[in-house]
């Protein structure tokens, strides 16, 4: 009885997650087709219009009279571009390093895993902050910083999964047939690891969105005039004591995105655990 209920809940989190992520993707795609106003168009006579008070600006306008809805829509491109591409880069490097270290356990493997341990020891966004200082601000800087941040989790995951899987009979059988390491990796390890990797990928995108918006909020990520939700919140800081609505829309956009990717990750994880047992 309780098991049945439990699986319904896990499907719920997967379902809600997918709906939220689809919603953000829809906004992002829509921004390429139609935006109500040019996101950087300033109009001093239309400053600080409250949401939906004049029926023209659904989410109001900011301190420069720019339409907030348009900026949120364009900002979704930046957030998704930075977070998804940095997770892809980080995952590819991480998976490669993890696989290499599982394959060559002795000197190469253990030294790679040691370096990964070292990277993991930097708490919070300290590593990202340090990297941003060196590689510079902006979209490219954020992507580099976040992708390096993502490497350790993926390489640890792949390393431990490969060490678990390699003693299984079918891998040994493949080896005795004379398959090369590369063939075994692609044909056998990757399919076995894929579910876990997809789960990890989804949660990592949630984390990446959080880091990107934090960096932009601190003024170290996306630079104006580009639009990013974190940057919008940082610009709203000067005025939100009088005009608190400025902070509402970007904040909710971030929550929806992070929550969506996290829920997909969690839901998938539960789903896979249940299927295995």
């Amino acid at each position, binding site marked *: 009885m*309780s098991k049945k*209920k*439990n699986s319904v*809940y896990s499907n719920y*989190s997967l379902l809600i997650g997918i709906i939220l992520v689809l919603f953000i993707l829809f906004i992002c795609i829509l921004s390429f087709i139609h935006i109500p106003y040019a996101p950087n168009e300033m109009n001093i006579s239309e400053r600080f219009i409250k949401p939906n008070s004049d029926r023209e600006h659904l989410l109001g306008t900011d301190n420069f009279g720019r339409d907030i809805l348009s900026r949120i829509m364009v900002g979704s491109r930046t957030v998704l571009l930075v977070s998804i591409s940095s997770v892809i880069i980080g995952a590819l490097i991480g998976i490669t390093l993890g696989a290499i270290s599982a394959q060559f356990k002795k000197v190469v493997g253990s030294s790679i895993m*040691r*370096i990964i*341990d*070292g*990277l993991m*020891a*930097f*708490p*919070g*966004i*300290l590593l990202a*902050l*340090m*990297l*941003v*200082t*060196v590689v510079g601000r902006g979209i490219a800087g954020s992507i580099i910083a976040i992708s390096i941040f993502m490497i350790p989790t993926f390489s640890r995951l792949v390393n431990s999964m490969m060490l678990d899987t390699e003693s299984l009979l079918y891998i040994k059988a493949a080896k005795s047939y004379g398959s090369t390491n590369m063939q075994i990796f692609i044909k056998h390890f990757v399919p076995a690891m894929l579910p876990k990797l997809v789960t990890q990928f989804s949660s990592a995108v*949630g984390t990446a969105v*959080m880091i990107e*918006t*934090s960096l932009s*909020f*601190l*003024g*170290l990520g996306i630079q104006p005039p580009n639009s990013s939700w*974190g940057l919008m*919140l*940082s610009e*709203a*800081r000067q005025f*939100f*004591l009088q005009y*608190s609505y400025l*902070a509402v829309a*970007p*904040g909710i956009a*971030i*929550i929806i995105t*992070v*929550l969506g990717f*996290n*829920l997909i990750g*969690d839901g998938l994880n539960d789903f896979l655990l249940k299927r295995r047992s």
Partner: protein
Amino acid sequence: MLNYLINRIKGAVIVLFLVSIITFMVLMILPGDPAQLILGTEATPDMVKDLHVSMGLDKPYYMQYGSWLIDFLRFDMGESYLYGESVSLLILNCLPVTLSIALFSMIIATLVAFIFGVLSSVKKDSFIDYFSRSIMQLGTAIPSFWIGMVFVVFFGLRLKWFPISGYVPASENFIKFLKSITLPSVVLAIGEFGLLLRIVRSSMQESISQDYMEMARVKGLSLISIYFKYALRGAMVAPLTIIGMQFAKLVGGTTVVETVFALPGLGRLVLTAVEHRDIVLLQGLVMFITTFVILITLVVDILIMFINPRIKTFERGE
């Protein structure tokens, strides 16, 4: 047990060594010329050369690294280019702020996580279980800078319960000190309790399903003493480890919150160092914070080893 202790300390020392190499490489070698990075593009060659000599950049890398590491071990991290003061002094001034909000927020997060974690594992699939799982998800998805801004408007501006920014040292006025760190700590706690709640819930569930719990029930002990005296004690180890890790992580992860509430802590110092490309300050800060974090994690692990009999027997069995 002694073996475990030695291995654990050895591991920490190796990680610290690697951290120092990574920090040195990222900040001193990767940018090409740190002096140029500090001075910016308008610097004249003479200025760059002077800074080279004063930072010791004219020596080979390994000598630079060696002298930097030895100085760091003596808690001498050089002089900040921006402030003109010693980095160690700057860090010591900022440390109490960050430590107090990290500690306070960990207390809040622990209380919330244990209350909801125990309740939701005892009453599995009830309303309270769904409620705590929902706030757990929301807590990790809410950006701290956003909830910080919301709190400033609501509790600071509308209700006027707490100051909207600034820090009052505990030695000056304890009540004002508590008020000045409450909002930032709550904001940090919101980001942290989700993971802890998850761990408490799962280890409580495991502990409840043990045989000795059935025994306690058969003996007719009251539910409260069953859950809080027996189940919770068995379920303490994993959460304690996580609490240690999270506290350590918080010491390095307060930049955003300290910015929102204008607190003069380590995180703000990191941000200033990054903004003004004060490499010496940043290098010292990153090394100090990371060392601090690794040491806390080490101490927590050792403490847990003394609390948890399972690790002891496990080690003896090996």
